[in-house]
């Protein structure tokens, strides 16, 4: 673990008990996040990408302890968040903040914009009322909202402006890590750019560290320093931005990248679209071997038998194989 590692996640497992109508006794479990390891350096952005059901959002919620983990370690500045008692956890929440996907359901409709930003400071920390008001003024300016908009209610804002309020709220307690869960996917394309530019500007100005959850690879490549690609609860590939986008090793990453439609003529001419057939396996009844084996055109017997370990940034028996 290098010195400026801020967030370090080891062997994180999140599982949910699933009721199955047939059978007695043993509970079936859905392993939404299965032995996941990653770390984020201070001031950098780690993106977790994956499709629906990959466990990326669950992993993020587990880091913030908004869902219960089954095992593992989430160390922030050396403190394991998963083993904090109630009051310590409440205080630690100031250090991990969340920006949500849906700007409509993530703001309490009954509070004024300023009160939404004030809420974390009321719950945590010991600022005086004047300090809080000053900080709200400061944050509103930082996210590009006008001071007179503090008195308005959420429904009086557009989607992009609401997301700005959400960002101001996340910044209120001066957190170490901000988890952005699909922060622009609910916004109109033209508004997405405004929010992405804002997030990058804030990162530069305040030295923020982001854990960025997204399914949009274009957005991810623009925002991140390194990437973890998840499939069915596992990280299948993990590495620096340029490596993953320019020379993807895992067949799933290759397929995922090739599936993104592009306006770049050169890219369309160069890359061949890799279609992956079939459907992902049943998450409650996972196969023994590689979870991607049933859809992978290069899968051999060993892939169906042994689960590949994440080694050198890729969890595949035949990394780099051409599909």
């Amino acid at each position, binding site marked *: 673990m290098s010195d400026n590692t801020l967030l370090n996640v080891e062997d994180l497992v999140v599982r949910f008990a699933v009721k199955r109508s047939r059978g007695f006794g043993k509970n079936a479990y859905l392993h939404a996040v299965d032995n996941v390891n990653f770390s984020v350096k201070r001031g950098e952005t780690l993106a977790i990408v994956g499709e629906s059901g990959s466990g990326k959002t669950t992993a993020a919620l587990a880091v913030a302890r*908004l869902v219960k983990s089954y095992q593992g370690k989430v160390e922030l500045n050396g403190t394991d968040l998963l083993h904090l008692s109630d009051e310590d956890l*409440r205080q630690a*929440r100031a250090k991990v903040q*969340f920006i949500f996907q849906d700007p409509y*359901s*993530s703001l*309490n*409709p009954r509070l004024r914009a300023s009160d939404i930003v004030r809420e*974390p400071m009321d*719950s945590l920390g010991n600022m005086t009322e004047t300090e809080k008001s000053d900080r709200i003024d400061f944050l509103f300016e930082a996210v590009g909202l006008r001071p007179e908009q503090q008195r308005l209610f959420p429904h009086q804002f557009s989607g992009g402006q609401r997301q700005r309020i959400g960002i101001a709220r996340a910044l209120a307690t001066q957190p170490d890590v901000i988890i952005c869960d699909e922060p622009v996917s609910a916004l109109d394309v033209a508004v997405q750019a405004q929010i992405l530019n804002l997030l990058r500007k804030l990162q530069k100005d305040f030295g923020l560290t982001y854990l960025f959850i997204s399914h949009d690879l274009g957005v991810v490549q623009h925002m991140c320093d390194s990437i973890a690609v998840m499939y069915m609860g596992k990280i299948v590939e993990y590495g620096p931005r340029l490596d993953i986008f320019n020379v993807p090793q895992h067949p799933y990453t290759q397929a995922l990248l090739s599936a993104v439609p592009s306006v770049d003529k050169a890219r369309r001419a160069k890359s061949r679209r890799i279609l992956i057939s079939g459907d992902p396996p049943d998450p409650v009844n996972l196969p023994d071997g590689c979870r991607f084996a049933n859809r992978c055109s290069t899968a051999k017997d060993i892939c169906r038998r042994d689960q590949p370990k994440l080694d050198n940034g890729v969890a595949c028996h035949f990394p780099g194989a051409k599909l």
Partner: protein
Amino acid sequence: MFRGNTAAMFALIVLGLIMLCAILGPWIYPTDPFDMVWAPFSPPGVDGFLLGTDYLGRDLLAALIHGSRVSIVIGLAAASVSIVIGVTVGALAGFYLGWVEELLMRITEFFQVLPTLLFSMVIVALFGASLPMITLAIGVVSWTAVARVTRSEFLRIRELEYVMASRASGATNSKLMFRVILPNALPPIIVQAALMVGSAILFEAGLSFLGLTDPNVVSWGQVIGSNRQYILDASYTVTIPGLAIFVTVLCISLVGDGLNDALNPKLRSR
């Protein structure tokens, strides 16, 4: 929005008049409803008694005006009791889930399947027919609907991201429950509460009709109950207080419906 609803607005005005009557009645019409003021069975309008007299020669108008206080007070108080119990149970069940929810919802179902009239009769018979006891009896048998509404709203709202955002910024459970979720869950509870007042008035009338009431206070139901033997000879003694109950409860329902439309965000956006 509410103002656009003519029926609800009209009902609100009528309800206001009834309330005014209940509050000021004893001063504008000081006749004691228990005094035998005239010959029995004097029909309405005859002999100077606007609504006539009952079988003991008591003034029906006085009974109606004085009785409105009891009916309305019991309606409001019983509704409050059921709201307090229902919201507490529903909020706890919808917020904590797990065994808390299981337990509380089983208790709710237990109260739901009880024959409400019989159960409240038992309470009143056991603990005496005083006004507070009647109020309590009505409240105890009618909170289940509120609990169910509250729980379902809590289940819906607790999953919304702003609740998660509050949790992420360190809100305590009690703050989440009462400051974040409850205010957003209120609209349907308010509607339920309005309808509850109406049904509590009906319930009280039912109980007093059966004689389970404080004999020293007059209420609409009690007037019907005590005159019921003479329904064929002097039908007005029963019809008039019956109409009073009917109009009041109908108005409350209309206002409740109006509130429902006004507070329902889906309808509001149209």
